[in-house]
């Protein structure tokens, strides 16, 4: 009962000092909103990075797809010659994979390396052999996620050009095209090693020049059709098959279904199925870096909230010296009086959460409808529209942090209350 009364006193004191209370609540609400918006931006960024990893990738191999299927040996043993552990009967394997629910497309890919030359100048390349018509499925998937937002459509255009090109078409990274002085329609030579270890040369025609997501990749990046790559390597195998699902969140579920389907008892060739997140080093390193930056921002914001609330609490203590002295003289112990101030901090926290949610919603609407165009992230080439996701999962943690911070500010008053002389307090003006 006494705790309820102390809570009532705390509430009434907050009301009595309404101007100060409102300012503190506004500061704390702004802190809450800032953290929630940062959380929403984090979700947006991570989601964007995730889908970009799946659809476009940050390496010369392009997007990772949701799942990748390899021969098991490819991840366990070193190949003695190119595509020693490649997938031979990949049409049959693709049929099996497509029969698994939630799989939208299968994308065969060949990874190969070699030299590219214009006759006068040669440079090394990291090549990917793809089925351009099927690769468009990744672009389509990207569109379903980011419909309405600003998207870089060059990738889609490039794959269309490659699909329409005469045999042996090739897409070059902008850096490589510049280094070779090549343009669309230029004839070049690809030199590589066949599966037998011999050197082979294939004539190719530039079908398009693409800007890769990362500028550094542009100097070495090359995409061609699987047939051209197989012709160069004199093989009918592919390195791996990528799976595009209808939703990223189904990745783990489909992974186990696919694994059991293609590694059923009795099958002679065993396959490894790897989810996109095990192939996304760049995604994880960026995510870790962002977490540190956002965590640091969070600490600063909470510190500001704490100091603001602490200032209010200490001011409140200073102004209520006589009241505190009276309560002590009446026989109420320091712990009960301190509890009253803890309640005040707690109530400021509760009000700030309500205000913070309101602020967050208002700013989220303004940002999301404002279509603010952001510059390309470091090392990337395409701009994007700023979006704030709801980040509901962050809100309980931010609320707890804020409540903890404002309530803890009430603890500071305990030291002041303990030190106050009752006699001096009673006559304090």
């Amino acid at each position: 009962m006494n705790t309820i009364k102390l809570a009532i006193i705390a509430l009434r004191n907050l009301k009595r000092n309404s101007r100060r209370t409102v300012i503190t609540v506004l500061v704390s609400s702004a802190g809450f909103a800032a953290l929630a918006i940062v959380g929403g931006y984090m979700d947006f960024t991570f989601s964007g990075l995730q889908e970009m990893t799946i659809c476009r990738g940050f390496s010369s191999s392009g997007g990772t797809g949701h799942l990748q299927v390899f021969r098991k040996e490819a991840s366990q043993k070193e190949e003695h010659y190119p595509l020693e552990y490649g997938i031979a009967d990949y049409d049959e394997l693709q049929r099996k994979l497509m029969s698994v629910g939630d799989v939208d497309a299968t994308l065969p890919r060949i990874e190969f390396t070699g030299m590219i030359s214009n006759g006068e100048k040669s440079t090394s390349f990291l090549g990917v052999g793809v089925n351009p018509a099927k690769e468009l499925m990744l672009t389509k998937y990207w569109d379903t996620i980011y419909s309405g937002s600003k998207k870089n459509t060059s990738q889609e255009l490039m794959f269309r050009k490659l699909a329409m090109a005469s045999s042996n078409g090739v897409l070059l990274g902008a850096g490589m095209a510049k280094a070779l002085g090549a343009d669309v329609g230029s004839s070049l030579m690809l030199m590589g090693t066949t599966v037998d270890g011999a050197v082979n040369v294939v004539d190719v025609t530039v079908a398009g020049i693409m800007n890769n997501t990362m500028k550094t990749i542009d100097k070495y990046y090359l995409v061609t059709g699987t047939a051209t790559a197989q012709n160069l390597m004199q093989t009918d195998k592919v390195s791996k098959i990528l799976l595009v699902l209808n939703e990223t969140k189904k990745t783990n579920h489909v992974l186990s279904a696919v694994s059991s389907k293609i590694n059923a008892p009795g099958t002679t060739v065993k396959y490894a199925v790897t989810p996109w997140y095990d192939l996304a080093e760049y995604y994880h390193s960026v995510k870790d870096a962002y977490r540190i930056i956002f965590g640091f921002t969070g600490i600063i914001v909470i510190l500001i909230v704490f100091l603001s609330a602490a200032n209010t609490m200490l001011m409140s203590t200073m102004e209520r010296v006589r009241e505190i002295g009276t309560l002590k003289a009446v026989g109420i112990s320091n712990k009960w009086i301190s509890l009253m101030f803890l309640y005040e901090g707690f109530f400021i926290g509760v009000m700030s959460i309500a205000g913070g949610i309101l602020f967050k919603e208002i700013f989220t609407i303004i940002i999301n409808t404002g279509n603010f165009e952001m510059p390309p992230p470091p090392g990337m080439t395409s701009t994007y529209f700023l979006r704030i996701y709801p980040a509901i999962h962050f809100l309980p943690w931010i609320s707890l942090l804020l409540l903890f911070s404002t309530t803890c500010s009430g603890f500071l008053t305990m030291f002041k209350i303990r030190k106050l002389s009752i006699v001096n307090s009673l006559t304090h003006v």
Partner: protein
Amino acid sequence: MVDVSRYYGTGEGRITALSHVDFDVKAGDFTVIAGLSGSGKSTLLHLLGCIDKQDDGRIIIDGTDTTMMSLEELAPIRLEKIGFVFQSFNLVPVLTAYENVELPLLFKGLDKHTIKARVGDILDELGLNERKKHYPREMSGGQQQRVAIARALVTKPSLILADEPTANLDSQTGTSIIDLLIDLNIKKGVSLVLSSHDSVVVDRISNIVYISDGSIKKASRKNPP
């Protein structure tokens, strides 16, 4: 109080507020401590009320030696055995008259029916029933002091201490407050110690202790008015 002294400051600037004072309050006594401003009246009351600590001597409240207890340890004694009435009323501004009187009872662990009955009775007795929902700022000085007296009485303490209770009141209201205290002393047998430098107040009380420069100079007892 046995041989109690209280000093303020240290070294050459040390001021003796109370010097080797022996003082005894018997059950049912109504004593006034009279003296000029700065004579040590309030210090004596503060020490008796366990809201200040003596530098020398012993203070025993209802058989409990408080000498070695800290002010925080004395809180339960203040709550159970002592009621305070202050010169400036010292009501909690955000609480109504009823809530101000109720406040100390909430920390005594009484059930809410007992609390309600006790607070209702005391407000009724002091003629404050119509003011029970009013906040201090909505009441006159005399009414506020009555609420303060009700708050001091509601815990049924062994001793009520009143530090210049009429100093902030006009003479008529002051007289009515003294009447009330005398009445409570006679009817309820409450022990009261009151400090005042007002001769009108002093003259109305039977036990008078004169204090000057921190020492008790004279004690006199006359027949009650």
